[in-house]
């Protein structure tokens, strides 16, 4: 399976600011995704990060709030913009390898907005 790292692992931010989360994979992958996991809850897909083009967002998530980049096959960023306390969550990057066997998750970024 691919080794996935995320930076930062955790952060505490003030409301109104923005945070960019990085996801790095140790091998080229077919697909990359960003999920949100609110406290004590399950995971929800935010968007599919498309290489070299705009991300595909799920219902309830918009580009202005969660801009995403994917400049190559091993790296993606998610920005949480104009943060409010409701954005306090774990943000997770996941990937599907080139063999398309299954989907693996990174360790997550734990965000607390005050």
């Amino acid at each position, binding site marked *: 399976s691919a080794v996935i790292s995320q930076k930062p692992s955790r952060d505490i931010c003030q409301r109104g600011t923005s945070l960019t989360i990085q996801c790095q994979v140790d091998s080229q992958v077919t697909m990359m995704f960003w999920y949100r996991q609110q406290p004590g809850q399950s995971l929800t897909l935010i968007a599919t990060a498309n290489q070299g083009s705009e991300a595909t967002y799920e219902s309830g998530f918009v580009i202005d709030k969660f801009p995403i980049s994917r400049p190559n096959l091993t790296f993606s960023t998610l920005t949480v913009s104009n943060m409010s306390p409701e954005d306090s969550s774990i943000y997770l990057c*996941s990937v599907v390898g080139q063999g398309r066997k*299954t*989907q693996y998750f990174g360790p997550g970024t734990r965000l607390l907005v005050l």
Partner: protein
Amino acid sequence: GESVGLHLPTLSVQEGDNSIINCAYSNSASDYFIWYKQESGKGPQFIIDIRSNMDKRQGQRVTVLLNKTVKHLSLQIAATQPGDSAVYFCAETLTDSWGKLQFGAGTQVVVTP
């Protein structure tokens, strides 16, 4: 959809016993299912998967059962160990929609000595 509320269903299991974790999935068209284990402070870890053309698949100490008639998935863990304490999620998807995983609410497994 997302689970509601902050209280996950909890399964308390004695060390050495077998665990059975159940999941009802929502889309009858889903053809690929995954079980993940999430330990505190970590991301979900892949355990085992199953495709809709199968009704049972075995791994190391784990077995997944799929009943498409009632849209039910279960994960059996043999000889549960303290390291199995975690939250377990089932996820479903259509292989034509790779990545659009729909997650279940999750079950907290607590292994007691």
